[in-house]
């Protein structure tokens, strides 16, 4: 069992958990994730680790409640426990001294972007972090990002905070004004696809942190496979970060919808357990 020492709301339907997982904390590097199971009948879901502290053995997870599992997770409070936390999994981000790096985080994807920003700053890069959300409430980690020393630009779709518009608009403006050596993107699939489209014409190297459905997270099942430049890759062991210009984002988006109907049934049950639908055998 992995104790939650702190659980806080950070946005609408988004919570931050500080969880005791000393082995994960000790080995964690930016870009890696954990597989979490809430309870003994729960599914295994991948969650990106936003921060880790070797001394306290704590890791920070940001969870947006969408499916049953993430919504159940978000009902947990300080003092509760997660049944399983396995990791850190995936290859760490390739952090080096690139020069100028832009890190784009959309919605809860900002939690993936944050450790990358921090690591890039520590590696001596000039880092511009563009983060966005639907509206002001959905913007997370702004002050933490500022504390890293990166230049932070906030955008909201509805213009309620920061620059109005999508992160990609700001990214395009940034690229027009500054030579950029590398772009990292983490967020919803359409956002990452749009980022890749913005950076492709000028050939700015772009890395996307992919978020496919996973089961074991160790390469054993291949459920997380993605198409990168016509080659099948397993996001859990070959990624999760890949060259965004080579990723087939449409395939990723489709595969992420594979269990849409099942999720809806489970979500309905979560709201009203009496409406439990009997499924096959």
């Amino acid at each position, binding site marked *: 069992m992995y104790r939650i020492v702190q659980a806080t709301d950070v946005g609408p339907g988004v919570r931050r958990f500080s969880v005791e997982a000393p082995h994960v904390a000790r080995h964690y590097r930016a870009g890696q994730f954990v597989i979490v199971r809430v309870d003994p009948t729960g599914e295994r879901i991948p969650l990106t680790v936003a921060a880790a502290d070797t001394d306290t053995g704590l890791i920070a997870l940001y969870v947006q409640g969408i499916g049953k599992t993430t919504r159940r997770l978000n009902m947990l409070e300080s003092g509760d426990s997660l049944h399983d936390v396995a990791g850190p*999994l995936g290859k760490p981000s390739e952090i080096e001294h690139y020069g100028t790096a832009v890190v784009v985080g959309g919605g809860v994807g900002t939690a993936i972007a944050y450790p990358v920003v921090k690591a890039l700053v520590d590696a001596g890069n000039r880092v511009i972090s563009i983060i966005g959300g639907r509206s002001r409430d959905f913007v997370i980690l702004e002050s933490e990002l500022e504390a890293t020393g990166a230049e932070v630009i906030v955008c909201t779709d509805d213009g309620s905070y920061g620059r109005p518009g999508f992160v990609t608009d700001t990214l395009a403006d940034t690229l027009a004004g500054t030579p950029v050596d590398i772009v990292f993107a983490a967020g919803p699939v359409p956002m990452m696809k749009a980022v890749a489209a913005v950076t492709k014409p000028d050939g700015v190297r772009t890395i996307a942190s992919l978020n496919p459905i996973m089961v074991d997270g160790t390469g054993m099942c291949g459920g997380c496979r993605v198409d990168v430049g016509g080659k099948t890759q397993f996001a859990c062991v070959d990624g999760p970060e890949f060259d965004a210009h080579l990723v087939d984002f449409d395939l990723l988006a489709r595969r992420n919808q594979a269990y849409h109907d099942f999720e809806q049934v489970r979500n309905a049950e979560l709201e009203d357990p009496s409406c439990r639908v009997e499924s096959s055998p």
Partner: protein
Amino acid sequence: MSAPLTKKERMKLDRIDMPERDAVERAGSFEEVNLGLTAKMAQLEAMRCLECKRPKCIDGCPVGIQIDEFIRLVAEGSVAEAAEVIQRDNLLPAICGRVCPQENQCEGTCVLAKKERPIAIGHLERYVADYVRTEGLHQVAEMPRPTGKAIAVIGSGPAGLACAGDLIQSGHAVTVFEALHEPGGVLVYGIPEFRLPKEIVQTEIAGLETLGVVFEMNAVVGRTHTLEELLAEFDAVFIGVGAGLPRFLGVPGENLIGVYSANEFLTRVNLMKAYLNDADTPVLDVTGKRIVVFGGGNTAMDAARTALRMGAADVRILYRRTEAEMPARREEVRHAREEGIAFDFLVSPTQLSGEDGLLRRVSLQRMELGEPDETGRRRPQPIEGATTEVEADLAVVAIGNGPNPLLLSTVPDLERTKWGTIAVDEATGRTSIPGVFAGGDIVTGGATVILAMGAGRRAAASVENWLDTGVWELPPSEEESVESA
């Protein structure tokens, strides 16, 4: 019991069939297919044994169980004693009695195999193991004095469990590191309930825990712990992580929704319990659908029969060679067929096609058998222009596993074979790094439960030798015995 039967009388007895759940009933149920022999059946079957002076059956057993001895004891009705005999060489008989390919091993070398009715050694092994389990006679060996040595076992599948079992009984402290949330490896994520009830695996693991083996779950060695850390903390490390990286077909369309690796399909259903209503893990709904399974091994049979039990209307196994080359246990093939699974031989997929991202059709190339390949099986080759198509809503790819890079990529100085598996001295499981042993599928590539267990046990013996002598190079006497083995 009357006077012992003469050899002639024994020869006249019929092989006792394993009682089975009815094919129609079981095709909709995850309950175990084989029901087990009764005491009477077991005794009658054991009485058929001709008590060969030089029993050939033992030669066929990868772990050298004293088969003649345990069968004689069963015939005498001394089942608990028979269990002790098996236990000397096999710590997991309830599992092996169910999943070993006996026809290629002990039963294949039994003298009666020539007449196609070898002693049902597997069924008897299972009977003995189930008897001691259900009667609560599980022998708890007397614990030896602690040696003060500690050994790390990576992976809790058959190789790791067998290795841990031997080492704990020698008085060492043993910690098993498992990446998943439940111990058992392929025994829990791969082999389905109807062939190997999970309760049996849990009993075996609980037995090891009683002996003092510590199981650490969610421990992904290479990530959660490094091998170097384990080497610093433990006196020896055994790697038994399995193959664990599923192969795909390498044809267009393999990433359509509806294409699963067997590992994923079986893991969702078995380990994550998607066949139960209260599990949160989904599996694509196969009710009334058409399923194809690529492959001819036990995993292919398991996937096909699982799909059937999940409600599929039509399940077919597509295999690129013929039935004779299928590596699956004969019993599984027969069970699959009885349950209504169709087999198409000499076909190989060339393309998977779909609509809206969902699998709909499989294009197939017809094959014929050519010259034998390096495995001795005749190599399938395409018949030019002979193609066909089958409709399919779900395809399961069960064509084997490659070595998983997760741990190996973090240990560059661990020597590998040209297949990417760990290079070891076969007799001792010793790797290129002193103190590090390996065995099972990560060494051999996809093989069987019993071979993995055998490797785990050989490595355990070799660990002992290493702890005693501190010599990593094989002593000459051992090398000689390797050659003669």
